[in-house]
């Protein structure tokens, strides 16, 4: 198998995953662009002055205000039927007693006694029915989606124009009491506020009682224009007990008393609004779009007559966002810019007994202002993005200009109203509803088809990974046709789809295009595999073995379906990792006692191959395991708490040093951080030295010797400046500022140039050539040149002289006349891993720079951990000479777990508020002008640092067992009992460890193993993303879906993409080294021929 097909095959598999992720995301995550435009009093939304000419009047904006004050009582999860008046039962029928029906008696009483003062509506809520999204809708009049693009992820504050903003800019005093979500949404907007934590869903009373303590005193004090009370008891009762519980009756009765008390205290200029933000299901949950969740109650009451007619028999159904423009105009405020609600015209009729003609005119003008505002918003929105359907937008515009023209006509001669008034009202309403409909279409609907399709595609890709990883090592499997046919099919399907959509005239959706291509390429592959599979082979060996590893993987997947476990994943991952490590140790012990010389689960085909040496003393693996556990626990100290667990305390070590007060501790910490940097450098240098690669005169090695210390120096200097910038004397300010710009850039530049060097000359080998060595090949002459005189290098230096001689025997035969040439090459045995380790350390330094200083300790732990883990895994893997080479499932799973654990221990959490935004300013302290990709890149590199490092380092899993081979013979020699045996087999005794050159000996198997490794890693990651997608789609009605599952899915998806790219790069690097080694051999042979 060649290299390029391997990479292409992996890229194709990645593409399948990407297509699945994109399809799922497009169906699941609804996106919308947030516009920051504001409506203002001075700028009416369109031409045409209102008939009353109220511009000059104080307290009047687009329309004169009808109420100067408003009391907004928000009862969380007040479903419509909770407030619905119950008709008196027909005698003889059994009375149905349900705890939540008919408990709001005061509403019913008022509706009956004062029909012109009050009205109950069924408000139709747009999903997602979660409180924060609903609050956004209730204040902005828009349809919040999960990802409101452009919003600031670091805080939840609403950036769009909203009622609260309009109220504050009009100078109204807002008093708030209740749910503390408002604090995040409107920081600093309230003149007085009493916030209560909404976190504990099981606590029914704290919030409500807290509100009641302040509600009436505040109301009586009169120090307010707008009073908002957000009660949570009903919602919490639903979550805890469900609606069918006596507690619900008590809670609703309490709310009834509250409303009663408020009504008694209302003054004539005050409007009372009682609203539910969403409903609840039969179980008391909400978040989704079922009928019960999206119906909420809305009740309006005013001590002055408000409505011209008595209420209809069945309460009217209105969209929830209608409240926003209605309230705005009633209070004499501009309608928020992004509102797409439609005013409730009844409220503008001027009350009971006003002239019908005038009241109709007032209604139409309210509608017209509303329509002008929506039209202005549609203009602005469609200019900013292409979300909305162009065709329908045009139709709407036409409709609006027609209605607008007839409105102007109407204003000129208001006498001939009548019929034209009615048609105008109908037209304006049609426009507003149309506008709402097209926004809804693009913003607020899960596409179940796309979600299912995406999940199916992901599942199929995982299955394919499993299948292909098994097939990759089986000899003679035709991968080239297996790759070509599916790609051809995929392209064909994509072309077909594109052609079809072009001929039908619709837009080509790139997501669907990708999905069609991916889905089209799958069946041919599966069909071919099926044909080649044969009936004899069972499907069982497909699954990851051994059984406990499979169980561990399944456990991990199951945890994605529980919000508690997703929140606690930072602790659950180290737990699973520790379990896997202990299992590996125990498994080693368990198998050690085999009567035959041990060989683990590796199927050995080449039976004549010498077995891997029984390497280590008994406690070796145990010591590795304990060391790993210790490192895991230590890195667990760097833990950031998720928001959902208030009892947990984040590690103080995750804050930058600059925030520390107290010089001594700061200096000590600084010393520790620099110590960690130096230790990282020393560890890598020691490692390279041990395998001899540090002797090579090649440029990358020189870079490691001289460039890395420079990078450490630069990083340390930058940290010193960053942590002490405020204490710098004023004269040096400019210098400090300049240095804090230049130093990080210099370090990154150095790292990049080091990587370039590594790519250019990846072979780090020292060659010594000397003439006149012995011609006989049976006796090996150990080279005793100057660099190997050190005792520790004696056994490590992989002398592959004989090996090379055998390999190039034929050519050497021809050159024999010119005299024998002996070539000794050192460090060839670790040439691949040396390049990998160098690349990793070069990658680690810039990533380290993006984190806060003290995370450098975590990076040190990370390298130690992976080193120990690789050793432990290598102890459980046997080395075969001829292949096929296999990477065990436990190795890949442990690697993925380690990557995940490091994600958490570097202070990250899969929530948007935990992203380290400061990373964008490393090297750019003044921010970025207009480019968004550079800060995104920096923040992304910070967030997914562990994914990058572990994915790039993945090939080490394959290489390490070969590297550890070199320790075998030495150990054996130390054992006294083995001497006789060693003497009996002198041939084997003398054999030098070939280490990674074994891989080169079997290039076909090498490439197959790389492919298998890539596929296995992709499988482990892919199953995670599949589980996340399934959890998000199955639990899309869950309370926590937007808080926990959706962010987790997004982080997993981006992490998967980053990891897969890193994996491809890592494998490509190994292949590059391989190619360079090949050309190096060729050059060597040419040199010998001369």
């Amino acid at each position, binding site marked *: 198998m060649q290299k390029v097909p391997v990479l292409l095959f992996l890229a194709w598999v990645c593409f399948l995953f990407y297509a699945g992720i994109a399809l799922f995301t497009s169906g699941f995550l609804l996106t919308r662009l947030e516009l920051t435009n504001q409506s203002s009093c001075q700028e009416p939304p369109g031409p045409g002055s209102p008939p009353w000419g109220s511009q000059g009047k104080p307290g009047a904006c687009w329309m004169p205000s009808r109420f100067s004050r408003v009391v907004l009582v928000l009862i969380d999860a007040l479903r419509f039927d909770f407030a619905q008046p119950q008709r008196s039962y027909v005698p003889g029928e059994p009375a149905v007693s349900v705890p939540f029906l008919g408990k709001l008696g005061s509403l019913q009483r008022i509706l009956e006694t004062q029909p012109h003062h009050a009205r109950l509506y069924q408000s139709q809520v747009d999903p997602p029915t979660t409180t924060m999204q609903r609050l956004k809708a209730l204040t902005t009049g828009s349809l919040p989606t999960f990802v409101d693009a452009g919003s600031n992820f670091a805080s939840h504050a609403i950036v769009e124009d909203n009622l609260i903003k309009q109220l504050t800019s009009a100078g109204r005093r807002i008093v708030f009491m209740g749910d503390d979500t408002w604090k995040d949404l409107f920081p600093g907007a309230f003149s007085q506020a009493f916030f209560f934590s909404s976190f504990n869903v*099981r606590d029914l009373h704290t919030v409500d009682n807290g509100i009641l303590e302040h509600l009436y005193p505040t109301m009586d004090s009169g120090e307010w224009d707008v009073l908002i009370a957000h009660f949570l008891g009903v919602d919490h009762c639903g979550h805890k007990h469900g609606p069918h519980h006596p507690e619900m009756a008590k809670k609703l009765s309490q709310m009834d008393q509250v409303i009663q008390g408020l009504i008694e205290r209302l003054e004539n200029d005050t409007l009372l609004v009682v609203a539910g933000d969403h409903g609840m299901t039969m179980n008391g949950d909400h978040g989704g779009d079922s009928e019960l969740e999206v119906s909420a109650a809305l009740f309006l009451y005013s001590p002055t007559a408000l409505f011209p007619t008595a209420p209809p028999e069945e309460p009217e159904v209105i969209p929830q966002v209608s409240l926003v423009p209605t309230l705005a105009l009633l209070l004499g405020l501009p309608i928020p810019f992004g509102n797409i609600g439609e005013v409730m015209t009844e409220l503008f009729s001027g009350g009971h007994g006003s002239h019908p003609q005038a009241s109709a005119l007032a209604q139409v003008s309210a509608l017209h202002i509303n329509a002008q505002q929506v039209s202005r918003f549609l203009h602005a929105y469609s200019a900013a993005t292409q979300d909305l359907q162009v065709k329908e937008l045009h139709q709407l515009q036409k409709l609006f200009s027609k209605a607008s023209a007839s409105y102007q006509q109407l204003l000129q001669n208001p006498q001939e109203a009548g019929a034209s008034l009615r048609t105008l009202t109908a037209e304006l309403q049609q426009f507003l509803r149309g506008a709402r409909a097209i926004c809804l279409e693009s913003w607020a609907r899960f596409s179940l088809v796309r979600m299912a399709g995406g999940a199916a595609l992901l599942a199929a890709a995982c299955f394919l990974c499993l299948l292909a990883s098994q097939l990759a090592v089986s000899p003679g499997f035709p991968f080239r046709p297996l790759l070509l046919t599916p790609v051809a099919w995929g392209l064909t399907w994509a072309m077909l789809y594109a052609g079809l959509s072009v001929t039908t005239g619709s837009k080509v959706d790139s997501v669907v295009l990708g999905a069609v291509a991916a889905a089209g390429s799958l069946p041919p592959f599966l069909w071919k595999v099926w044909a080649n599979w044969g009936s004899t082979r069972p499907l069982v060996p497909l699954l990851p073995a051994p059984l406990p590893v499979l169980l561990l993987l399944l456990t991990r997947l199951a945890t994605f379906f*529980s*919000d*508690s*476990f997703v*929140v*606690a994943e930072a*602790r*659950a991952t*180290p*737990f699973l990792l*520790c*379990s896997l490590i202990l299992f590996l140790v*125990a498994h080693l*012990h*368990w*198998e*050690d*006692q*085999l*009567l035959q010389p041990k060989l683990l689960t590796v199927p050995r085909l080449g039976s004549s191959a010498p077995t891997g040496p029984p390497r280590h003393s008994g406690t070796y693996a145990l010591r590795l395991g*304990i060391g790993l*556990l*210790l490192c*895991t*626990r230590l890195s*667990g100290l760097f833990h950031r708490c998720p928001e959902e667990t208030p009892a947990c305390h984040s590690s103080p070590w995750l804050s930058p040093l600059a925030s520390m007060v107290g010089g001594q501790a700061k200096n000590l910490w600084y010393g520790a951080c620099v110590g960690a940097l130096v230790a990282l450098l020393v560890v890598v240098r020691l490692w390279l030295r041990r395998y001899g690669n540090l002797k090579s005169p090649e440029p990358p090695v020189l870079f490691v010797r001289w460039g890395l210390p420079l990078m450490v120096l630069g990083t340390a200097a930058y940290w010193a400046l960053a942590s002490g910038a405020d204490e710098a004397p004023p004269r040096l300010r400019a210098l400090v500022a300049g240095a804090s710009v230049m130093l990080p850039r210099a370090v990154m530049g150095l790292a990049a140039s080091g990587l370039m060097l590594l790519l250019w000359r990846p072979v780090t080998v020292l060659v010594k050539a000397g003439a006149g060595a012995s011609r006989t090949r049976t006796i090996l002459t150990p080279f005793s040149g100057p660099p190997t005189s050190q005792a520790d290098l004696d056994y490590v230096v992989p002398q592959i002289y004989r090996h090379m001689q055998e390999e190039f025997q034929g050519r050497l035969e021809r050159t024999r006349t010119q005299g024998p040439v002996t070539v000794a090459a050192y460090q060839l045995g670790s040439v691949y891993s040396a390049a990998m380790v160098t690349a990793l350390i070069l990658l680690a330094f810039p990533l380290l720079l993006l984190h806060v200083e003290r995370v450098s300790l975590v990076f040190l732990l990370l390298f130690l951990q992976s080193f120990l883990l690789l050793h432990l895994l290598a102890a459980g893997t046997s080395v075969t000479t001829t292949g096929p080479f296999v990477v065990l499932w436990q190795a890949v799973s442990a690697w993925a777990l380690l990557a995940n654990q490091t994600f958490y221990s570097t202070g990250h959490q899969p929530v948007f508020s935990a992203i380290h935004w400061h990373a964008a300013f490393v090297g750019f302290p003044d921010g970025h002008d207009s480019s968004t990709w550079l800060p995104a890149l920096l923040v992304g590199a910070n967030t997914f640092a562990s994914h990058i490092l572990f994915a790039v380092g993945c090939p080490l899993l394959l290489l390490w067992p070969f590297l550890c081979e070199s320790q075998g013979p030495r150990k054996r020699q130390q054992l006294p009992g083995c001497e006789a045996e060693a003497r009996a087999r002198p041939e084997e005794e003398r054999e030098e460890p070939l280490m990674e050159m074994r891989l080169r000996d079997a290039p076909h198997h090498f490439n197959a193993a790389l492919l298998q490794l890539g596929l296995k890693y992709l499988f482990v990651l892919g199953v995670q993303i599949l589980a996340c997608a399934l959890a998000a789609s199955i639990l899309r009605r869950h309370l926590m879906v937007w808080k926990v599952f959706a962010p987790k899915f997004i982080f997993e998806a981006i992490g998967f993409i980053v990891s897969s790219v890193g994996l491809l790069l890592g494998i490509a690097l190994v292949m590059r080294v391989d190619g360079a080694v090949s050309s190096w051999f060729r050059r060597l042979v040419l040199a010998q021929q001369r």
Partner: protein
Amino acid sequence: MKDTDIKRLLYSNLLCVFSVFLSVFIPSLFLDNFSILETHLTWLCTCSTSVTGVNLLLHLVVKPNVSSRRSSLSHKVSRVLKCCIYFLLSCFFLHIIFVLYGAPLIELVLETFLFAVILSTFTTVPCLCLLGPNLKAWLRVFSRNGVTSIWENSLQITTISSFIGAWLGAFPIPLDWERPWQVWPISCTLGATFGYVAGLVSSPLWIYWNRKQLTYKSN
């Protein structure tokens, strides 16, 4: 291997199960307000003592292992002392493992240590009774094809199931059910106890069902 052996194993194992149950019911006769969850530490102590007592009793009465040749008093005393030291060491070792697994280092030290004690009671004490303070024998029993009698086989099964039970017991801790038994280390101790009991009950049955396949090297 005879059926009578298996029967003896079953009875002695049932006695151990009985001792676990005793530890639940007996203290409530003497102590007010005794319950497993609220006075958890007391229960841990009583359970540990009663299981240790029954194990020692069984060791003395049933004598499943071949008694050592030398039986001088000093040898016996040193053996007993060694056993105590081994038990303590295993407690400390398990405590360290728990802390490495993520248990709090400073808070709840007593709880964590008592958990280590009870897990040692379920695992180390039977080992000490059956195999004596002989690490090599322990390592032999816990490896493939290492067991040489049904007693050792049963020991292997109960020990592994105790550990698995304790491991599974950690899973409910992060869940937000807010039950009293979700607090560290109650769920783990309960899990270990259930695992121990399950191992005790299932090992004779498992041995009985597999008695045709089981061939011990020297028995």
